[in-house]
């Protein structure tokens, strides 16, 4: 499996012969190109066209994050997998309102049912969440009656709202109260963690989409217009609760990240590099965790599960098998 390379230091990225080379004041590092799947750039990094050409030729995506840790954009090399048939099917399912909502509903349902799994786990462990669980169950039951995207979005918002409100019970960490969801900039520590984790999730799903015949610009829940990429946002919904949120609970529970790892910046709160590195390491470890897959018949990593999810969507689009979202078993 190819690696995700995270770059936090400032420096220069170059092509040296047939390898990638990163040079900073502290280090000189060769990155064997066949081993690299994607680059996540947090530091001030300069690179030239020759480097981009090489990355493009080797089909390596480069994701950029701002100084504040927000996702800025990606160098998405030219498409290397083309299937006219798949693109037509993907667009056809977007344009047909009925078909679009059927897919969008599966994304919301997957997200909600994975949220439910997280809640169930913590209800068994710390209790006090059963009321929320019941309400989430009710909303899940009502999804079938949502026949337009806005109602589906509202139902999803409703679930997420209730879910976030019990984060204080789950984390049991008074330094990290949830208060309310705030973005751009996140106004407290927990919100900063959530935003950071979600941004990473979006880019990881985008990288996986690049390795399929799907077009990331055509999403179903998130409208295709006005945005460059949207299919990655759709798929990320399913994985955020079981990957990002679980990493958040784990780093807070083990006190791997504390309030000292943040600093105030204008109106928001931002993570220091040390905290970002810790988070990224934990996320990487989570993505490498394997679970047994019935169909494949051997253990597959969470990262691979994301790819399988895209394959399932492809099979839905070509009319082979109705798409059902991945639901964590615990």
């Amino acid at each position, binding site marked *: 499996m190819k690696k995700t390379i995270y770059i936090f230091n400032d420096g220069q990225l170059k092509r040296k012969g047939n390898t990638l080379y990163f040079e900073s004041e502290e280090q000189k590092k060769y990155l064997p190109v066949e081993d690299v799947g994607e680059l996540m750039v947090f530091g001030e990094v300069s690179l030239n066209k020759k480097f981009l050409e090489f990355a493009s030729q080797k089909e390596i995506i480069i994701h950029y994050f701002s100084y504040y840790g927000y996702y800025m954009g990606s160098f998405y090399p030219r498409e290397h997998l083309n299937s006219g*048939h798949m693109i037509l099917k993907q667009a056809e399912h977007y344009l047909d309102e009925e078909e679009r909502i059927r897919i969008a509903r599966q994304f919301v349902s997957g997200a909600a049912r994975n949220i439910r799994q997280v809640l169930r786990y913590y209800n068994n462990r710390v209790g006090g969440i059963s009321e929320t669980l019941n309400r989430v169950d009710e909303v899940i039951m009502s999804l079938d009656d949502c026949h337009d995207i806005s109602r589906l979005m509202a139902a999803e918002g409703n679930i997420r709202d209730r879910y976030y409100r019990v984060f204080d019970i789950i984390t049991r960490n008074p330094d990290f109260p949830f208060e309310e969801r705030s973005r751009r900039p996140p106004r407290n520590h927990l919100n900063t963690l959530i935003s950071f984790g979600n941004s990473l999730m979006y880019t990881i799903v985008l990288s996986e989409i690049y390795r399929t015949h799907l077009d990331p610009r055509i999403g179903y829940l998130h409208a295709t217009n006005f945005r460059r990429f949207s299919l990655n946002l759709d798929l990320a919904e399913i994985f955020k609760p079981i990957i990002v949120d679980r990493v958040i609970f784990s780093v807070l529970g083990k006190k791997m990240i504390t309030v000292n790892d943040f600093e105030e910046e204008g109106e928001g709160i931002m993570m220091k590099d040390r905290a970002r590195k810790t988070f990224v390491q934990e996320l990487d470890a989570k993505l490498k965790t394997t679970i047994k897959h019935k169909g494949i018949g051997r253990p597959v990593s969470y990262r691979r599960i994301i790819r399988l999810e895209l*394959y399932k969507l492809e099979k839905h689009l070509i009319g082979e098998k109705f798409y059902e979202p991945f639901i964590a078993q615990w």
Partner: protein
Amino acid sequence: MPDNEINVGGTLIWYYYVCKREVWLMGRQITADQDDTNVILGRFFAEQSYGREKKEIAFGHMKFDVVRKDRHGLVVAEVKKSSKHIKSAKMQLAFYLWELSQKGIKARGELLFPKEKRRELVELTDELIDNLLEAKRDILRIIYDSIPPEAEKKQICRNCAYAEFCWS
């Protein structure tokens, strides 16, 4: 005319005798997982084998590994890594022989398995031609079907780069 729209070439003949589902997917350019170890190795060797490249003889859309002449006439040979899919290899080569014969060139074929120190002669017979024409028709039927043939778990799925697509 479907024959012009989809060119049923040697590779599709090869896949036809390995897995019919793969024919549909390849026919629609839904290629297999490029991160698969075998695919990466294959790509690597193809890039590195310059020596081989020079030996390849292109004829139209066909590429022959070796072409030689003996006292009975022209021989075209296809080199394969192993004889595991000998039926597929045989039909692929027979297909090339048939295409050559359509252009008025009579040739015999040879399958070479250098690792196994083994060779197999392939001669175009009426029976083979019938089978090929039948296969070609069936390939078009498969590709023009709106959905792919259902996945069947076989021995080859274990090493197939489509496995995760099929079984997800």
